[in-house]
Every structure is written in structure tokens, then in C-alpha cells.
């Protein structure tokens, strides 16, 4: 039977090394011409517990979590426990016999004696490769590519390890062949030219593309992966990565680095960002650009450290005392991740404002396949000028933007002050100067060009489903599945300022539906605040999980009925 898509779930313990094998498998899928997506759900522990990964294999672009499980691979004895309500008679469960029978289900079961076979090879560590063999065979992936990827992955560890992995793959292949099961998905040859990618990599690549050469941060899930990605490029791409003593140091370092001529970023999550807020205000008054990657996870407090939520839009929007302009961007697709992160640096430099990239655990830990972006073609403008002897850092201009020089480059002085200041950058309490400086700062975005919302679906919609950030893929797929000629999806890569077309786009619809992965509809609040427009229906979720396609189909469908 050929289907549009299948969903595979791997269920095991933390510390079983699922990640490496998932990345290998998605590369195999991509090279075999399948679209694919991986969503990860992790518990906040290093060993044990239950972690699951959902791998979707599809004939068309896919970037969304589904509840349905077509194929479940159970890797630990508790692996079934939390998944029972996602299993039905159509699910096929594969795994060690006692694992897959540990709970009664309606599913079809295919027991495999992995432990015994791995013992033959010498270590249970090869279990993951066994299942690559199973999956690769069940989905008719290109076997030669699978073997090449495996040997590339393990060659560093020596020839015997490569050989053992190859044996484990063979065992898996044999188990799949003997099973009589087979899954067939239509291939798309264009996928072979694409790139398998992880969510956090898109932010790292976009940052490097945007000229980021300085990162200071303090580790915090789910933001750390971007920090680690950049650290692995320190030498190859000349990016200086500093682990700060706290988030306050991190943001002040990033601002200091911009002041001296770098393009700097911090990557953090809500709690860490909360500590940075005075620094955001510092960027505001000193007009020093800064880029903040804010990786959301459910709060308040420590919340659910390894789960997902879109609960920090208000934090980004209101962070920092006093009034000053800012820009907030939020990627939905992998391509967005690269392009918006690149753009964040361009905007920060051009307008001398803090720019936020808002992501979340679901986006960052996810993996998928993206269209390659030709980074050499993206625009890069250096706005830094050489100072002359009469240089004034805060010269009043019509645009509100004063030329930015850096210290040591020219005959002038670059005097930057967190107190209210004169054009020369020196402290003042003069009321007229204060007002002129506030007005200057507040008009800085007057020439800013919006990143427009995208309308996906019919142009003549009567119902518009509005979303931002990581639910992009699930909303898109749900709206497509509903297949209603009156319904379109309006996606906002630029969350703030609200793009100038927002009003027109929203007012065109008779019925407005908002989808957000938080408890208080923060984007909806912003739209009401700035435009006075309210949503007819608000679909929210804040249990730590991403939206599934089925839930959105049901909840949007209910409104349409």
C-alpha cells in the first residue's frame, strides 16, 4: 500500500544514543528521496526515563508532529507505557518480545530477538544500527547509501566497530525481510538535492551567514545546542564563543563586542533571558545592536525544562525598562531559521536595535529536510563608518539613525552612554536634549521594511488561521487536510512590529482563528493591542507538547462545521 506519509516512533531510555542514529536515518531518507521530519520528546534527565522520537516519512514536504503511530519501535521495557492512547489496530510494534508485550494493545506485533543477536556481535550498543537495518529495509531505502553513512559515522572508532555495525545492520535487514511487512511512500527525486538539517543548525548557520563572529552565553536548554553548534565552528568560521558566568555577563559581552565592531549574539531560554533584560534596555539607549536567540520552553520558573511552548513572546516584547524600538522574528520552516537568523544581524546593524529570534524546544530539537539556501547570494551590508575628529555617536538625524563608528578606527571618539546623553555621547539631564534623543530613537524603524506575512492556501479566504513560529508545519498540514476552499493559513515570520499589511490581511477574513502554543494567546494580545482586532476562535495548548496535526484538524474543523 502506498501512502502519503507514515509515522514511526522510537521509544527508549535517555542515554541509549538515539540521536546519532536518528540523524543518520534522516540523512538516509533524504538521500533516498523521501521527505522526512523528526520530533523529539525528551525527559529532563541524562539516563533512564522514557524519551521518544517521532520520524515521519512522506512524499511531500512535512514538518509536523502527528499523534498517530504507524510503526512503533520499542527499545526499553517501559517503552510502551506512555504511548498507549496513540496505538491502535493499525499500529505495527517491533521490538524485544517482552518489551512489546509488556502492555496489552490492539496493535500488530512483530517480536525480534535483538538482545540475543547483539550479544552475538558483542555489545547491545549496536541495537540502534539493527533498527536502522530494519527501517531502511521496511521503507526500501538505498542500501548502499545506508552502508556508506554507517561507515562514515563509525570510521573514527576503528574498523572492527564499522564491521560490527555492518553486521547489526544485516541482522536488522534480515528481520525486516522475514516480517512480510513493507511500507511504501512515493519518492521525490528533488529531495536528493536538499539537505538534512537539525533545527538548531538552521539558527547557527543563519547566524554565521549573517556575520556573527562573537557569541557569549550561559548554558540553558533548549538554547545550548546553538551555542554548541557555533563552538564547533570557532576555528573553521572564526567565531569566538565565550561561556559567560551568567546571562547578565553574556548580554553585556555581546553588546561590548558589537560596540567594538563584532556581530554578536546571545542564545538563551526564558529564565536566562529574564536576567538579560536590563541589557536589552542598555542596547536600547546606547543604540548598540544586539541579536538575541530566545529559545522558549514552558515556564514560569524552571517550568518544563525539556518541553516546548511559545510562552515568551510577551517577555521579548516587553523586556527592558523604558521605551525603545525592537524587532522580533520567529521561524516556522527550516529555511526561515537560516534566513531570519541571517536577517536578524542585518536588521540589528542597520537600525541599531535589539533583534530577537524566537524559537522553541520543538523547533530546535526537531530535524528535517530543507531546500538549500545559496548563502553567497544573501545581502550583507557593513554599516560601520570610520570616525573623523568631529564624530558624534548620537548625531540627530531625520531617520533617527546616527552613523555608527567603532573605537580605534578613525580620528574620533566613540562615546556611548547608558545615561541620557548629548549627541557627543556625554551624560546630560537637559530636558530638551532628552526629548530629542527619545524622539530620535523612537523613529529609527521608520524606514524599516517588514518581512511580510505569508498566506498559504486560497487568496480569497473567508476564514484565516493565524500562527507564528514552530506550529507552522502542523497548522499548514491541518489546513491542507481540511481541504476547505474558504480557509487559508496566515503565517507571521515577523512577529513584531506587526507588519503593515497585517490589518488588511486579517480584515479580509470573516472568521479569524488563532493558534498558539501558550496559555494566554500572546500574539493575539499583541494584535488586539496594536490593531484592535480580536480573534473569533483561539486554539491554545500549553501542556508542554507541540500541536499535533490531528488535534488541529479536529479543533479547526469544529469551528468550520
Amino acid at each position, binding site marked *: 500500500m502506498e501512502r502519503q506519509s507514515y509515522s514511526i516512533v522510537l521509544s527508549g531510555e535517555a542515554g541509549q544514543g538515539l540521536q546519532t542514529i536518528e540523524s543518520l536515518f534522516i540523512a538516509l531518507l533524504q538521500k533516498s528521496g523521501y521527505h522526512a521530519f523528526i520530533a523529539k520528546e525528551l525527559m529532563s534527565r541524562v539516563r533512564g526515563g522514557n524519551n521518544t522520537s517521532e520520524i515521519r516519512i512522506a512524499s511531500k514536504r512535512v514538518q509536523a508532529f502527528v499523534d498517530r503511530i504507524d510503526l512503533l519501535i520499542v527499545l526499553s521495557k517501559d517503552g510502551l507505557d506512555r504511548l498507549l492512547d496513540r496505538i491502535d489496530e493499525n499500529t505495527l510494534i517491533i521490538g524485544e518480545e517482552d518489551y512489546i508485550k509488556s502492555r496489552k494493545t490492539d496493535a500488530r506485533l512483530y517480536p525480534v530477538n535483538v538482545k540475543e543477536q547483539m550479544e552475538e556481535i558483542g555489545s547491545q550498543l549496536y541495537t540502534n544500527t539493527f533498527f536502522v537495518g530494519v527501517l531502511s529495509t521496511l521503507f526500501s531505502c538505498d542500501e548502499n547509501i545506508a552502508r556508506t553513512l554507517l561507515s562514515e559515522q563509525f570510521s573514527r572508532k576503528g574498523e572492527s566497530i564499522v564491521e560490527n555495525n555492518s553486521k547489526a545492520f544485516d541482522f536488522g535487514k534480515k528481520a525486516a525481510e522475514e516480517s512480510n511487512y513493507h511500507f511504501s511512500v512515493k519518492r521525490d527525486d528533488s529531495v536528493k538535492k536538499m539537505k538534512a538539517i537539525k533545527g538548531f543548525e538552521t539558527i547557527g548557520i543563519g547566524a554565521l551567514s549573517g556575520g556573527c563572529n*562573537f557569541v557569549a552565553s550561559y548554558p540553558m536548554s533548549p538554547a545550548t545546542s546553538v551555542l554548541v553548534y557555533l563552538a564547533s565552528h570557532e576555528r573553521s568560521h572564526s567565531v569566538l564563543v565565550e561561556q559567560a558566568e551568567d546571562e547578565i555577563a553574556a548580554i553585556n559581552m555581546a553588546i*561590548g563586542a558589537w560596540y567594538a*565592531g563584532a556581530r554578536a549574539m546571545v542564545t538563551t531560554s526564558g529564565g536566562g533571558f529574564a536576567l538579560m533584560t536590563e541589557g536589552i534596555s542598555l542596547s536600547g539607549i546606547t543604540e548598540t545592536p544586539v541579536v538575541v536567540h530566545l529559545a522558549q520552553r514552558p515556564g514560569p520558573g524552571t517550568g518544563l525544562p525539556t518541553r516546548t511552548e511559545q510562552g515568551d513572546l510577551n517577555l521579548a516584547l516587553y523586556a527592558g525598562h523604558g521605551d525603545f524600538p525592537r524587532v522580533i522574528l520567529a521561524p516556522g520552516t527550516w529555511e526561515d531559521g537560516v534566513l531570519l537568523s541571517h536577517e536578524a544581524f542585518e536588521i540589528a546593524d542597520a537600525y541599531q536595535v535589539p533583534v530577537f529570534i524566537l524559537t522553541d524546544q520543538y523547533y530546535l530539537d526537531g530535524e528535517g529536510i530543507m531546500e538549500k539556501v545559496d548563502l553567497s547570494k544573501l545581502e550583507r551590508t557593513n554599516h560601520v563608518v570610520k570616525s573623523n575628529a568631529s564624530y558624534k555617536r548620537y548625531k540627530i538625524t531625520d531617520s533617527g539613525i546616527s552613523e555608527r563608528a567603532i*573605537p580605534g578606527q578613525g580620528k574620533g571618539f566613540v562615546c556611548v552612554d547608558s545615561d541620557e546623553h548629548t549627541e557627543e555621547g556625554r551624560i546630560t539631564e537637559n530636558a530638551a536634549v532628552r526629548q530629542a534623543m527619545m524622539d530620535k530613537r523612537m523613529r529609527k524603524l521608520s524606514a524599516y521594511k517588514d518581512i511580510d506575512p505569508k498566506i498559504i492556501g486560497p487568496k480569497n479566504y473567508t476564514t484565516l488561521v493565524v500562527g507564528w513560529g514552530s506550529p507552522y508545519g502542523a497548522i499548514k498540514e491541518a489546513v491542507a487536510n481540511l481541504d476547505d476552499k474558504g480557509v487559508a493559513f496566515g503565517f507571521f515570520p515577523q512577529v513584531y512590529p506587526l507588519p503593515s499589511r497585517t490589518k488588511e490581511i486579517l480584515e479580509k477574513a470573516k472568521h479569524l482563528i488563532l493558534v498558539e502554543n501558550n496559555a494566554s494567546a500572546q500574539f493575539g494580545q499583541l494584535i488586539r493591542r496594536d490593531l484592535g482586532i480580536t480573534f473569533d476562535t483561539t486554539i491554545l495548548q500549553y501542556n508542554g507538547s507541540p500541536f499535533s496535526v490531528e488535534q488541529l484538524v479536529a479543533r479547526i474543523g469544529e469551528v468550520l462545521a
Partner: protein
Amino acid sequence: MKETRFDIKGDIAWCPGCGNFLLLQLLKESLDELDVDPTNVVISSGIGQAAKMPQYVNTSFFNGLHGRGLPVATAISLTNPELLVIAEGGDGDMYGEGGNHFLHTVRRNPNIVHLVHNNMVYGLTKGQASPTSPRGFKTPLQTEGVILEPLNPLALAITLGAGFVARTFVGNRELTKDVVKQAIAHKGYALVDIFDPCVSFNKVNTFAWYKEHSYVLGDDWDSSNKIQSLTKSMENDPFPLGVLYKNPEEQPSLAEMHPAYQEEDTPLFKRKRSVKDLTALMA
């Protein structure tokens, strides 16, 4: 008063008689006498009376947030190691609000000069206790006197691995200039804690008090013995002045150790990413 290339005209917000005036003049003279190019200097400071210093010096400056002078200075120096970077502020700014940065900046060893005006009080906010206020020091807030042990920045810096640790008193012009100049010449992090009386809010630790309760280390002082220097740094009545510790072996600075500076030593801000490097990211 001697004229320097670092002079700038304008109103100064300090109280008449404040020790900061002396230090301002001494810093400008030190820079001038070292023949430093004013356009190559950046002073990074926080907030406080001390932290206003760069406002009155003809150089580039980043007068940022209370307590945050050090991380800004570190980043400036990492981005452009060719600049002379001075981080300057008060005892509250640097040891209180910015205390965590102090600890870790010493460990990092960036090539910066750290000047701390130590008046043992919060001047700008009108006289509360600072981390260096002595026990028993009465303020409108510590109404029955300070009950905390004062922080010892010199001992802390030495134990954290600082390569240059000194203390001076603004009342001693020659010593202050000498120590500041040595700190500028030192490669890596250099701490100068400067006794600098606040005439408005500290009626205990006055010019006369500092003079009476300190002495200058003699020419025969061996600053190269870390344990001996640590012991010396624990003396507090009288307080020793001068270079208490200088690591006889030059240590690599933060920039020199950073992986990003291993392949090339071009300052970070001057580097361009090649098309080849960009395309590699999408391979």
C-alpha cells in the same frame, strides 16, 4: 595642574574635594606620559560616582550599566585586542553588583586594566554600606553599623590567579601613577584597588584615615612570591600599598588562548567570512 592630551572641558558632577578629582588627573597624566594614543583607548565603566570617570577623559568610552563594566571590557578587548581597554568603577559597582563578573574576569585573564575606586561606601546613592565598608560602619541603612565581613579584593584576585594585583591611595600621587602605569604595561588582567575618599558620605575613612592606616611597600618587597603576597594582602591595619603581586612569568591572555585566535591573529572585527566558508555550511 598639568595639561594632558586627555583633557576635556565641561562640568564635572563630583563634590568638591572628592578623591575622584585627584584620580582623574593622575590617570590622565599616566596615559599622557605613557604616550598612549587617545583614540586607541576605551574606558568601560558601570554606574556610580567612580564610574563617571570616562565622561571626563578624552577617549572613547562605554559607560554602561551598574556592575557590568567588566564583561563589556572583556568583549571589547576580545573583539579588538589592539585597543587599550580600562574597566573602571566603584567598590559597589565592581565588587557588589558586579561581584560575579569580578571573580570570573580574573579567571579569564583578559588584557584589561581594572581600576576600582574604593571609598568603602556607595557614594552616588548617598551613603549606604559597600562590600568593603568596615564592620561597625554606620549609615542611614546600616543604622547600627555594618555587620558583614568586608570583602578583600586583593586576596580574592590573587587566589583566583590574577597576574597583577596592586593597591594605591589617591593621596599618594607618585605611587598611584607608578602603579597605574605598571598595570597598563602588564599583559593580561591587572587589578588596581584605589583608596579614594568620599568626602560626603564616608566620615570614617577620610584622607587622614587612609594616610594613617596604610603604608607603602618598600623597594625590597618581593612581589613575585604568590603565597607571601597573599599573606600580605590579608594585612588590614595598616593596609600595604603598592604592587602586592606580580606573576614573574608572563601568562597568555584570554584572546591569545581563544580558539578563534589560534588560526589567525587579525582582530576579530576585521575578519571577513569567505564565500567558500559560507557555502560549506550548506554542503
